[in-house]
């Protein structure tokens, strides 16, 4: 029996939607994530960069590395948020991974 492939979900999302995205990620069964709290760039909502005094124009990045099933649930859940909030989501297959916690119980959506 082969091991389940590991995927990396990279999410760029409005900072205000971060708590909701993290809830989706934990519900999908991911055991961890990494946040880069401030990224800026240009996309379908024009230029988005931090104003400093309000987080409304700030984007954050979340990286989730998880077994394929969990990663797909994360992508589906966060994808729904991206219908309303600015951002971009990509999923790639990880060739080599060290340090991923695969022991915790996970729950597929």
């Amino acid at each position, binding site marked *: 029996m082969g091991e389940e492939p590991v995927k990396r979900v990279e999410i760029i999302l*409005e900072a*205000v*939607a971060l*708590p*909701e995205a993290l809830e989706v990620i934990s519900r999908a069964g991911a055991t961890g994530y990494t946040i880069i709290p*401030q990224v800026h760039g240009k996309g379908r*909502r*024009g230029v988005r960069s*931090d*104003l*400093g*005094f*309000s*987080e*409304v*124009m700030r984007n954050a990045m979340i990286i989730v590395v998880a077994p394929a099933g969990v990663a797909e649930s994360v992508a589906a859940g966060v994808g*729904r*948020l991206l219908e*309303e*909030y600015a951002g971009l989501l990509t999923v790639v297959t990880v060739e080599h991974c060290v340090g991923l916690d695969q022991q915790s119980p996970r729950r597929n959506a």
Partner: protein
Amino acid sequence: MHDFLSTAVGTLLSPLILFFVLGFAAALVRSDLEVPKDVTAALSLYLMLAIGFKGGEELVREGLSALLLITAGAGLVLGLILPVIAFVILTRLGRIDPVNAGAIASHYGSISVVTFVTAQGMLARLGLSHEGFMTAVMALMESPGVISGILLARLFSSRRTGDPAGGRWSGAVPPRTRAALRETLFGAAPTVLLGSLVIGAVTGEKGMSMMKPFIIEPFQGVLCLFLLDMGLTAGRRLGDFLQVGRFLGLFGIVVPLLGGGLGALTGTLIGLSVGGATLLAVLAASASYIAAPAAVRLALPQANPGLAITLSLGITFPFNIVFGIPLYHALASWLGR
């Protein structure tokens, strides 16, 4: 007229406005001048803390009075009514959809702390006193307008304005509305402002003598630095401002004038001093760009966040600090005669 002009020139020549203009000009000539965003966030925190603390101390020094309660009530009513006026103008005259109209109305119902302190600075330069409880009234006026605008958007919008489908959520208040309520009541800005107000009130004069070197002396300088950054932000987003169109551009000036007029009139009618009525007018005229945007973004994610913040920061804020404040002062002086 002469009074108005001399006040206007006096306001224009204050370091506060000149630093704002410097930032704006630097952005236009594409200078690489930059205030690091973490510094801006810290400056904003400092301003809220200092304003709140000072307001709390003044509140206790003056004590409870009938005028305080009446002004607080008037502030609340203004906060609830102003978004309705803005909403009607936006939807009826501007044919803006209810979600975006509600989002913009929320910003205009709430207040701008920086416009308020700039007006306080102008009153001080004119040697005009005002009721010490005005800062507390300002803190009180931060949230009702935001909530009022969000409710209008939800009430008049047939589109789904909120929560992810799936039925996972339970409870009467949808989670996004709850998140927005939490943000408007307990977000960073209102928490520091209200918390400092309470600390200022509890520690009173003793607390003030301890905090004075931190919150009084450096205040104007910090405000200049903050306004420099606001000027930079406004200047760098000039392209967005030019895209909002003639109607919204006009809205960003006319609605503050309406609010300012209503505020000055209310302040005079309830018996505030000229300084107090000027401040109530400034509160009614100003639009939020610190506290409201995040709450509105959470409650109304379909609304274009660039639109409301562009209007309040790019049009109404500069208009108010340069022309509005002297105008509201002139109106309050005339009404108070």
